[in-house]
């Protein structure tokens, strides 16, 4: 298959991704209710948006460390990329910081789990359409479904693999959300599954490596360790609350 790249469609699909994700979040908040007041919820959303913006940019630039020199100017110069992993981790950290400052104890991410899956999947259509310019294509392959992004080399369409993965993950989380579940578990499951997926699938991307894996994979490893550590903390908290 040969693709005619259209990088200008990337922001269009990215915008669709945000809009569809937000509409889904509104719908699930309306149907399942929210443990947070409006004020608190908007504060969480704002923290997530700013954290995602910074995180995606910083990791997007760090990804290029092995091949280009990084300056402070590269943080604010247009172009140069963003990454979903950086966005998720940055958003997560920012929300935890704001929750600590505002003394919000409850787990707040469940409402975002399915909307994030759908939003990222829609945004990935734009990454696929953008072709080589987006930098999210896969390594060369001889498999029959390899896609020629315009340079005459069939490559793994990793964006399409990810759309398929997110469709399955979103469906599973949606089914799980309909059953009784511990607060926060859906978001943590999304983070664990997505970070593990990226840790694996990024071996099919030609990004520059640092000590055997690329910077996004290192961020996934760090995120998974942080997730595991905070899971242990939650389990300890629950155990201490439960009567003997």
């Amino acid at each position, binding site marked *: 298959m040969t693709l005619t790249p259209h990088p200008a469609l*990337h922001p269009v699909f990215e915008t669709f991704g945000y809009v569809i994700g937000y509409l889904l979040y509104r719908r699930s908040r309306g149907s399942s209710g929210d443990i947070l007041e*409006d*004020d608190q919820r*908007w504060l969480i959303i*704002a923290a997530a*948006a700013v954290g995602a913006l910074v995180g995606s940019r910083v990791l997007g630039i760090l990804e290029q460390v092995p091949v280009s020199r990084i300056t402070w100017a590269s943080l604010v110069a247009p172009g140069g990329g*963003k990454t979903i992993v950086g966005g998720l981790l940055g958003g997560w950290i920012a929300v935890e910081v704001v929750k600590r400052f505002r003394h919000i104890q409850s787990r707040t991410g469940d409402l975002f789990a399915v909307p994030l899956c759908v939003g990222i999947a829609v945004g990935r259509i734009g990454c696929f359409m953008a072709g080589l310019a*987006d930098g999210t294509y896969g390594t060369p392959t001889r498999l029959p479904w390899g896609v020629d992004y315009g340079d005459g080399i069939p490559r793994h369409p990793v964006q399409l693999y990810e759309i398929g993965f997110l469709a399955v993950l979103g469906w599973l989380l949606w089914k799980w959300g309909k059953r009784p579940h511990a607060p926060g578990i859906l978001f943590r499951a999304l983070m664990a599954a997505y970070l593990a997926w990226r840790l694996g699938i990024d071996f099919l991307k030609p990004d520059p490596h640092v000590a055997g894996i690329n910077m996004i994979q290192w961020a996934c490893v760090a995120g998974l360790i942080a997730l595991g550590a905070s899971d242990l903390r939650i389990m300890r908290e629950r155990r201490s609350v439960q009567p003997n």
Partner: protein
Amino acid sequence: MFSLINNGKRSGLAKATAILATGFGISFGLCGLNAIVIDSVQSNGWGFLIVTAYLELAAMIICAVGLLIIAVIAIFRALRRRKSADRESSQP
């Protein structure tokens, strides 16, 4: 946007921040690159997409300025709150 900030509720600033940060995030990613790429797509009938490049540029500037204004308002509000709290605590 100004009605969002001045709507009297505490969520106004947060809402505006979320919208502007998202807008900035979308527009910041491929902007600049788009302007270069548009040249190549203009010849094969996709020239209308030049609009997205200009939209991105406009969104980038508007959202960045908006975020700066919000930061200033937030600092101003925090200072005013602290002043009034000091005044209340100093009253006998």
